[in-house]
């Protein structure tokens, strides 16, 4: 049938009802198929009565389109369709139909046996979401290396990895195992962030203070506590600001031993109090002190560690972000609780592959990518916003005058013995804080939500429901700083956090950062190996760095990068090592300069 004839028939369906055309075309199934296909693409409902017939037509003439048809169409007889597909050996369609019919296991069987497609199987299991299916899948994959690898790669979050790994025989050669394992570990890495909050000051309510001279406690203010006297003597003279050579003031010490590492390890931060040196990286110093500690056993067993939360695998997370507003990721992301012992077991399995140290592998630095992605997104917004920006009503001089009267600019007073008030730090896991906050919110908002759900139902009658309103991806923010808005979204459940600890994770940047600015922090000064992000100080800390009730030190966010190899020379009596610091200025700082 020519296309003009087809078009005419389809466009004039009101004059030429589908049924009459159908009857006429009975003799030439090919034409009938073309016609019905056209009708269906125009409007699936128009060919409702003939869906069952269409199944066989598609199967005969255009099998590629069959799956799409089956997904969209509603009015076909499942049994018949199944029969047709099985006869024609159309496996994917059969799988879909079995899934529709609720017969998961059979579908799974077909996928695995006929199609040998592990990814399809995983997708199917994910869609159906039943525990049983996963278990069956795992059982089936025992002894089939490609399946196991596929499972490790794609289904890291949906299945109990422990079981899977247990079921791997000890001598099974799995190609690409190392990469899959790394990917899993990377996934685990995403959300295990620790947050530090201000705890009571010295001599506080609980009255049970840790010894302030204990160097293995995390705290801010006061005087630093070193592992030994020598350190304090040696450091006293060399803690000078690189810009103005004034003596730096102690900001905080963070006790952060590394896993499986036999050292007690603390990081100290010092900064220059001179107002003209604030917000610059050169005026900050980070010191790392370590001490070998025999009492620590190198364990690979963790007995009753609390189960940690594991996010959905990296790719899924990104898909969601692209489609909708990335702020709402934590609302809907499926998070399962897993037991940690998995990771250590996984380490053992590396023996299967020839031993290549993981450190030599190139895993892309997520750091750079994320900041540059955001950069691209923001550039457009920032540009347009700056065009619309109105010139301030008052002149610059008026502003300077106002600043003088209202913000007494501090001058550095030469009393070097000044120190920040002493506070301990209490530490909590980010995920726990968020979960708790969400729970509290839900409780308080229960009533409100019911009211709002009522409003929502009224809208069903509205003819403009969803039709003309479009989804807005980036919210229209008056101040134009989308990165800061995202930063605020991230900390909204715990806005009073002062430290964010995420070893080898990504820093949470405050405002837009150029891709190159962090490059100065990438190499260790002592051993030339690369540095990883360890922790950052949050802007909320500024409120606690007061001297004589005036803000003594200002910054936006301070990122501390430490040597990834944790270099330390025990025999050479190393006392301390320097680490890299990057300071990001307060987003408002440029206005007040």
């Amino acid at each position, binding site marked *: 049938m020519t296309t003009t004839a087809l078009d005419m028939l389809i466009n004039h369906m009101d004059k030429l009802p589908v049924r009459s055309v159908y009857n006429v075309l009975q003799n030439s199934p090919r034409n009938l198929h073309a016609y019905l296909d056209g009708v269906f693409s125009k409007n699936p409902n128009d060919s409702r009565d003939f869906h069952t017939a269409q199944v066989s037509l598609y199967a005969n003439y255009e099998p590629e389109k069959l799956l799409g048809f089956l997904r969209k169409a509603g009015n076909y007889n499942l049994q018949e369709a199944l029969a047709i597909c099985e006869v024609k050996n159309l496996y994917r369609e059969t799988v879909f139909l079995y899934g529709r019919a609720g017969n998961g296991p059979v579908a799974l069987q077909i996928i695995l046996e006929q199609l040998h497609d592990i990814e399809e199987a995983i997708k199917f299991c994910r869609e159906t979401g039943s525990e049983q299916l996963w278990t069956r899948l795992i059982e089936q994959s025992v002894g089939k290396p490609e399946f196991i690898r596929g499972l490790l790669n794609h289904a890291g979050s949906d299945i109990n990895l422990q079981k899977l790994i247990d079921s791997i025989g000890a001598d099974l050669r799995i190609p690409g195992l190392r990469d899959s394992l790394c990917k899993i*570990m*990377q996934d685990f890495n995403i959300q*295990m*962030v620790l947050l530090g909050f201000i705890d*009571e000051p010295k001599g506080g309510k609980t009255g049970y203070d840790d010894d302030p001279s204990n160097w293995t*406690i995390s705290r801010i203010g006061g005087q630093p506590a070193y592992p030994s006297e020598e350190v304090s003597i040696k450091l006293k003279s060399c803690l000078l600001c690189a810009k103005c050579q004034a003596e730096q003031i102690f900001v905080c010490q963070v006790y*952060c031993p*590394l*896993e*499986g590492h036999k050292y*007690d390890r603390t990081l100290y931060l010092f900064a220059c109090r001179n107002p003209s040196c604030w917000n610059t990286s050169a005026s900050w110093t980070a010191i790392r002190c370590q001490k070998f500690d025999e009492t*620590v056993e190198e364990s690979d067993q*963790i007995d009753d*560690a609390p189960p940690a939360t594991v996010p959905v695998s990296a790719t899924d997370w990104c898909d969601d972000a692209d*489609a*909708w507003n990335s702020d709402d990721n934590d*609302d809907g992301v499926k998070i399962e609780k897993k037991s*940690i012992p998995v*990771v250590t077991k996984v380490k053992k399995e590396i023996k299967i592959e020839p031993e290549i140290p993981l450190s030599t*592998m190139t895993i892309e630095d997520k750091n750079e990518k994320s900041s540059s992605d955001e950069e691209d997104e923001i550039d457009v917004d920032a540009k347009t916003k700056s065009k619309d920006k*109105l010139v301030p*009503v*008052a*002149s*610059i*001089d008026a502003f300077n*005058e*106002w600043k003088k009267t*209202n913000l007494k600019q501090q001058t550095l007073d030469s009393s070097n013995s000044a120190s920040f008030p002493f506070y*301990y730090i*209490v*530490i909590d896991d980010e995920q726990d804080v968020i979960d708790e906050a969400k729970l509290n919110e839900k409780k308080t*908002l229960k009533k409100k939500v019911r009211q*709002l759900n009522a409003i929502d139902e009224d*809208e069903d009658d*509205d003819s403009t429901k969803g039709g003309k309103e479009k989804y*807005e991806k980036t*919210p*229209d*923010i*008056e*101040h*134009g700083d989308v990165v800061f808005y995202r930063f*605020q979204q991230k*900390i909204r459940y715990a*806005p*009073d956090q002062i430290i964010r*600890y*995420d*070893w080898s994770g990504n820093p949470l940047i405050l405002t837009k950062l150029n891709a190159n600015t962090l490059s100065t922090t990438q190499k260790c000064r002592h051993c030339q190996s*690369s540095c990883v992000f360890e*922790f950052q100080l949050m*802007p*909320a800390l500024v*409120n606690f760095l007061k001297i004589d009730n005036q803000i003594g030190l200002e910054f936006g966010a301070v990122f501390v990068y430490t*040597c990834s190899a944790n270099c330390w020379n025990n025999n050479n009596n190393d006392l301390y090592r320097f680490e890299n610091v990057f300071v990001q200025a*307060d987003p408002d*700082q440029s*206005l*007040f300069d």
Partner: protein
Amino acid sequence: MAERGGTRGGFGTRGGRGGEGGRGRGEGGRGRGEGGRGDSRGRGRGRRGQRPKDDTTKAWVPVTKLGRLVNDGKIRTLEEIYLFSLPIKEADIIDRLLPDLKDEVLKIMPVQKQTRAGQRTRFKAIVVVGDGKGHIGLGVKCSKEVATAIRGAIILAKLSVIPVRRGYWGNKIGLPHTVPCKVTGSCGSVLVRLIPAPRGTSLVCAPVPKKLLQMAGIQDCWTAAKGCTATLGNFAKATYAAMAATYSYLTPDLWKETVFTKTPFQEYSDHLAIAQKKLTVGVANKNY
């Protein structure tokens, strides 16, 4: 929680030793007896004080410099921020400076997006905030849950609070009650025109701009609208844009230039300050 000899307190014990793997993943914070859960002491424990968990209203901890100034009371009115066009990045600033701000949800509608797995529905909330004394803000947020959308929209509305100038229709008796002149704002295809009206006219307009004008504190106004006003988002934004235009309009009473004079002594010390800083563009643009 099993403590290993009680020596592992402090921050995350994460990562492995350098040799084993750059990304070798240890579990984080295993040794943390803190966070209100640890019981046994030991050396090297971070504090285990209890964080206040059931705080109904947590005190605001400012994150930006402007926030700190507002929190400390150095900035008392919102007008000071407007005068110098400082961007407001924290919604709590508005809360602090405009304590009697009210918020109202204009509409919640589901919007859909077609994905491979069917249609994804999210809820879009449009919220307007205002104090009835010349400040108005409009926020639009989309989210999977209604409550989240509303909360997000309220925050965005607070961030977008602008001053609304009110004037008189005729005699300048009493307090201003209407827009100072005919202003217009548009968004999408919708164009909204606000026209001054005599006292007692009350708001002659559709329900959507009526709500906005009421919250801004305009008592009388005639309006004219054009375009597809059924799109509530655009209609509200157009009205908001019209109200924003009231302060960009140069009326005759603003003709006289405000001269910001300085004492010679200040001028002299300023000159020193400027010499140290990089020359700013503003110096060239001095108004006098």
